[in-house]
């Protein structure tokens, strides 16, 4: 499958990795866990550049922000007690839902994002947490919001740069969060996934809202319209209906072997509703 690969590089520094990636002669490709890459028939790739020896497997606090290195594995994220407690553990929950234990022991956060599948499970929690990606190119280092990182199915703004880390600003305090994933079976990629976060004042008025949707558009997206509907309103059944309907209008799902577009639309509505209900429950508010 990778019969044209002539070298497997294991650089020890970021700059060397980037140099190898940008080498003119041949087609170079970064490999982290390999769980997406190794399954593809890479018949054009000539050079594989392993990024797992660059010291990028870490979960660090930086003031109120959290930095997660690109090669941190899903298992490490799922098992990190810090991540388990951050934002009701939505990122840990999403990481724990990525494939089987054998997959998660290899799969990296950076790989999940750089692969840019519309169904990537860690994308929606990171979107609602307003995460940024840090990219190191041949010349410059860039930091950009995750919303700008995804440009299409399996397309990102990374170009020939290395995804170094994710930066999550300290999650909004007193906010409740939820991650909802719908698969056909227990171990499945998402047919739809939803992450949400809300904050309510004493009168149950929404003072902060984030909703992100996965597997329902060419890339993981924020549901800005639905968020807008929420802000400043009192969260009640009526608003839940309106918001989940709005979210279902913001998507652009496809028909495929896993589900029809129409079904994805319905699921979006249900999962958004359930996510918000779970948030409310976590805030111990009855609707």
């Amino acid at each position, binding site marked *: *499958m990778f019969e*044209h690969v*002539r*070298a497997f590089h294991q650089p020890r520094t970021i700059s060397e990795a980037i140099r190898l990636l940008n080498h003119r002669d041949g087609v170079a490709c970064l490999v982290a866990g*390999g769980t997406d890459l*190794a399954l593809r028939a890479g018949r054009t790739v000539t050079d594989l550049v392993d990024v797992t020896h660059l010291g990028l497997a870490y979960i660090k606090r930086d003031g109120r922000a959290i930095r997660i290195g690109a090669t941190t594995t899903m298992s490490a994220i799922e098992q990190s007690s810090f991540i388990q407690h951050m934002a009701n553990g939505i990122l840990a929950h999403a990481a724990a839902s990525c494939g*089987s*234990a054998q997959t998660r022991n290899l799969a990296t956060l950076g790989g999940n994002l750089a692969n840019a599948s519309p169904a990537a499970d860690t994308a929606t929690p990171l979107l609602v947490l307003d995460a940024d990606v840090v990219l190191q190119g041949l010349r410059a280092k860039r930091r950009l919001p995750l919303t700008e990182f995804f440009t299409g199915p399996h397309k990102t703004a990374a170009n020939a740069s290395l995804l170094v880390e994710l930066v999550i600003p300290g999650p909004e305090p007193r906010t409740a969060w939820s991650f909802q994933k*719908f698969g056909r*079976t227990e171990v499945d990629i998402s047919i739809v996934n939803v992450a949400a976060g809300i904050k309510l004042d004493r009168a149950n008025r929404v003072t902060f809202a984030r909703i992100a949707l996965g597997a329902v558009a060419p890339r993981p997206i924020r549901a800005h319209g639905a968020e807008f509907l929420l802000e400043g309103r009192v969260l009640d059944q009526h608003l839940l209906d309106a918001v989940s309907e709005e979210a279902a209008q913001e998507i652009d799902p496809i028909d495929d072997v896993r589900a029809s577009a129409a079904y994805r639309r319905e699921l979006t509505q249900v999962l958004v509703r359930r996510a918000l209900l779970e948030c409310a429950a976590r805030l111990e508010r009855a609707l």
Partner: protein
Amino acid sequence: MKRSGRNSTPSMQLSLRVNGEAREWTIAPGDLLLDVLRREGYYGVKRGCETGECGACTILLDGKPVNSCMIFAAQAEDREITTVEGVAHGDQLHPVQQSLVDHGGVQCGFCTPGIVLSSKAYLEEHPNASEDEIRTALSGHLCRCTGYSKPVEAVLAAEHAATRKPSHAAHSHDIVGHNEPKVDAVKFVTGRPAFTDDIHIPGMLYGKILPSPHAHARIRSIDVSKARALPGVHAVLTYKDVPRVPHTTAGQAWPEPSPYDTYLLDSKVRFVGDRVAAVAAESREIAEEALRRIQVEYEVLPPVLDMEHASDPGVPVIHDEKDSTGIHDARHNVASVIHKQIGDVEQGFRDSDLIFENEYRTPRQHHCSLEPHITITWLDEDKRLVIRTSTQIPFHVRRQVGMILQIPVQRIHVIKPRIGGGFGGKQEMLLEDICGALTLATNRPVKMEYTRHEEFFMARSRHAQVLRVKMGFRKDGTILANHMSVLASTGAYGSHSSTVQGNTGSKVLPLYRAPHLKFDCDIVYTNTPVSGAFRGYGCPQGFFAQESLIDEVAEKLRLDPIELRLKNLIRQGDTDELSAQLGEGRKGLPRLIRSCGMDECLARGAAAIGWKQKRSARRDKKSPFQHGIGVACSMQGSSIAGIDWGSATVTLNEDGSYRVHTGCADVGAGADTVLSQIAAETLGVTLDKITLLSGDTDYTPFDVGAYASSTTIISGGAVKKAAEKARASFLEVAAPLMKVPVEKLTCRNNLVIDLDDERHTMPIAEVARHATYKAKVQIIESASHFITDSPPPFCATFAEVEVDTETGKVRVLHLVNAVDCGVALNPNLAEGQVEGAAAQGIGYALHENMQLDENGRMLNANFLDYKILSSKDMPKLTTILVPTEEPLGPYGAKSIGEIAINNPGPAIANAIYHAIGIRFRQLPIRSEDVLRAIHERESAAQPNFAEVSKSL
């Protein structure tokens, strides 16, 4: 960069530690770890899918389980790898391994190495793991055999160092009826090389088939010169190079009832995946490159994809060749038709007070054996063709390959090693002929295997059917007439076409007594993947229809569904006359029901699920989660009456142990164990004194193979007979030594015992030595066995489901199977059969379906999108073995291998109806379909019943 052959491939050094030892290997930079490990002889690392889904290739990387198919070998530099071979300390098994052996956690053993490694790693970090946690930890290991209950139970027990479960019944026998561990389990848990692919033969080539990209086309021209010119390519075969012999790939006794409509290679292709050409080359990469260089010009023909229009006027003819035989009506794409009747259903309907009729649809289901089809062929030192192959039918393969390649049967030697699951998919001669042809063309050993992707559409599958059932009732619920009409697609070739469908009638309709039964069936060709034998063999389709309709009728008649069934079920002493009409493609034999535990199955199953309380439980109408329970009944057969037969030879060794030779083919379900138990019981020795050799056409006597639930009753019957004869001959030698008349002697527990004075004994070993060196006689006896009936096992299944009415998702919470399989010769193995079938049946009910696009291409030919259930998806399983005594079976046994697959479909559909009041008459019942139906009901009153009702 240009490449030619392996030599010019760039290479690199890899150093790592494997199972505690330093290793230094030369690899290619693009090699995957799985390929390197197997190349280096770590055969315990299995290839099941190569897409990260199945877990068969699991290793521990620095102590953590990972799939070796999705990591580059170079990434293992300086790391510590543990394969299953490194888990035991010498002969001392790891507690997880021992527990899997003891608790029946192993069936075919193909998934086992991965399960051992993941469990070991998990328990080391989580010593007090709960069942739920273990199920999560193992959810990346697909197992198609066990239904996960026993492996999970075993891992839980390993954690608590629990001892083996005792046999649950009191026994008059020493060995049969007991939970003996599988005789081959230790080699599976330790990953010893036991499967077809676990050998390396020097000079072995890699063979590969060029699959047709078109569903229906004629090959106008085919140019293989560029492929032949590629260095490393040793043969390229097209239809021009091989004999043209019409045959069927169905592994059935000669003369096969399936049409002879298949050719080794042909100038016409009839489905996407059909053989266009075959190559043999030095490596898989070169073989694949060679395929890309074959230039084919096709005349693309319109495909026939929809079975309901396959016989329409003007539809293209799929089998327009002149030389095929046994096709019913090739011009209308009809492979076979069946019209059989007992009594007169029309009269029955006239006599009925109520008539109900509905239509049901069932999908193409794939076997998904964890080991895909694989064959290795070579010429031995006498230039005989040796075929080492993953098959259920070694003797049929020998005959078929002999016929196709035109070599005498005598010149062929078929070896069946351990098989990684069959389920009927390997009751088919599939790669053996083409692989043999490549060996003959190259004079070299050749290996051919399907990738998981190819396996899905190039192997076989369960026939899709459209079934119409019409039943006439008296007011009190007595069935007077039952008429089933079936349309089935056999795909591009007619393998098993008439017989699978014949079974849909003969095994399903007679479950209920009715004076008037009729079965009509058309089996049509379509340009789709070929159907074939699959556990249940036509019954899951038929029972889905019949058991759904019965449930619908019960509601109309305001009867409890169990009561309605009890009123009509076949009983001991009844004769099933329909089976006489519907034999194996010809006239069959009537079935006399000599044992039937169905009433008890229903009673105990109902108690286990809590039928009474749950049927009448009040529900919270507001909750999005609705619960329901449903029931279904079925029966099967035990062998094909008057056709299946087997034989065995029993030979005494000088140390008092016995060799048993049988042609029977253990496909992982435990035949070798059960046959060893029968031999040991009959010969009066302990199980360790039996060495069983099976499924080798040079060394074992004839057996039709492992199918039609025939192994225990037929092969077991043969072993019992041969063992009885051997025991008699043995006692002839023992009698003068012990100075006791033969009729006063018995053998038990490795001793010859004087029945008049039980303290007067002599070790069997002593008599054996005497026989060998003093008396100079070889105790050796053979026997053949067949029966002219096919005693049915019976099964009642209860399902409890929860339906999420907002997403449509159906969760099965509990599945109870109460099965009458006669005397269970090994209850643990019998339960394993039921649980494994249950998992396949739940998958059939809710997920499994080979989806084809409008060009006949399969869309979900991988484990990501063809979903089989994982340990996390399985409900609680309760398995109840209801003992009866079958006079025709060895030690009272009937079959158990197939029956439990029949009921989950209807039981779940009936439970869903109970939960939400919506009837699903098509499988699989996907969450999307459920939600759509819920919405349709909301928007309109559901047109529920196509009922032709007379006045009550």
